[in-house]
């Protein structure tokens, strides 16, 4: 498990399950991405370079973004694909629930930087056609997982 420390909050992520699920659909997902010149999770908004005090909120935004805007748009493919997306999505939900528990004790403040970074990602996402955007975001999951791995 990867443990992320946000102030008093410790959130554990089953990176093994998530990377396993994503690894099995990564190629087919990225192959369907028609907008190869666009990148949603841009290096300039990376989680690990976000100010420590803003990381929790930014991470929470990213989790909610994937849960609400991405996974449910990518369910239609094959049963194989659907089951892998379900594995990732349910693990994201498990993490978000842990983070929400932390949030209740206000150790997850939302500063300007966190909101700005998230809005940059969301605005790029919303400029694209929704299914293509969701597919691109799903294909960029390895970027997010790398951000998480690099986050102390």
């Amino acid at each position, binding site marked *: *498990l990867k443990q992320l420390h946000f102030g008093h909050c410790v959130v554990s992520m*089953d990176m093994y*399950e998530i990377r396993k699920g994503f690894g099995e659909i990564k190629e087919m997902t990225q192959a369907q991405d028609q907008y190869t010149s666009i990148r949603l999770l841009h290096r300039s908004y990376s989680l690990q370079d976000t100010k420590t005090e803003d990381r929790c909120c930014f991470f929470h935004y990213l989790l909610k973004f994937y849960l609400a805007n991405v996974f449910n748009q990518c369910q239609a493919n094959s*049963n194989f694909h659907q089951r892998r997306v*379900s594995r990732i999505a*349910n*693990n994201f*939900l*498990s993490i978000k629930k842990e983070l929400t528990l932390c949030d209740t004790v206000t150790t997850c403040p939302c500063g300007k930087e966190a909101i700005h970074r998230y809005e940059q990602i969301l605005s790029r996402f919303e400029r694209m056609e929704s299914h293509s955007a969701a597919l691109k975001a799903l294909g960029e999951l390895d970027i997010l997982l790398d951000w998480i791995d690099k986050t102390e």
Partner: protein
Amino acid sequence: LVPLLVSGALLPAPQNITILSTNMKHFLVWSPLTVPGEAVKYSIEFQGEYERDYANDSWIPIGECTDISATQCDITEDISATVPYNLRVRAAQGTEVSRWATLNGLFNRVTTSLIPPMLTVMADGYHLLVELEHLGPAFEFLVLYWRKGQENQVYEKVVRDSNTTVHLETMEAGAEYCVKAQTYVEAINRSSNFSQVQCVKAAD
């Protein structure tokens, strides 16, 4: 109680659906349908908390557990997060399909039964060695060992890779050493009970 089909009636739904979950391996089990005519086939679908909360309560078929004759199926691959899951089974005979029968209550892998691990303790000359049962990547082992008669001085070792023989200690000549172990699953933050104690004697 095994449902008996009266001819012409709709195919009854499977009954007595339960989950057998041991050491993070999860099997869905149900009672067979006793109906005249063609063989009965069964299919399973699952629904995680995500599907309930974000994907319109959708259900996902499990390919390996679709149109099977057996009355059990390994669903471990799809119970892949520590959230509550819903599961359902239905029967089919020819073109006729039963209602879905849903597991009574949600299943969360945090409730799996963790069994004390099997281990083999060996003395190789003065070397105290242990081999541990391979249970998969989700498992770690806490191994405790001590010299017999010095029970107040117990040593421990955490083993993450149970594929290899583990060297615990270089023993005193002729002394007896004892070992026991328990499993730990980080994903659900739970441990098994300890195994039986095994003791071996070092060479003289």
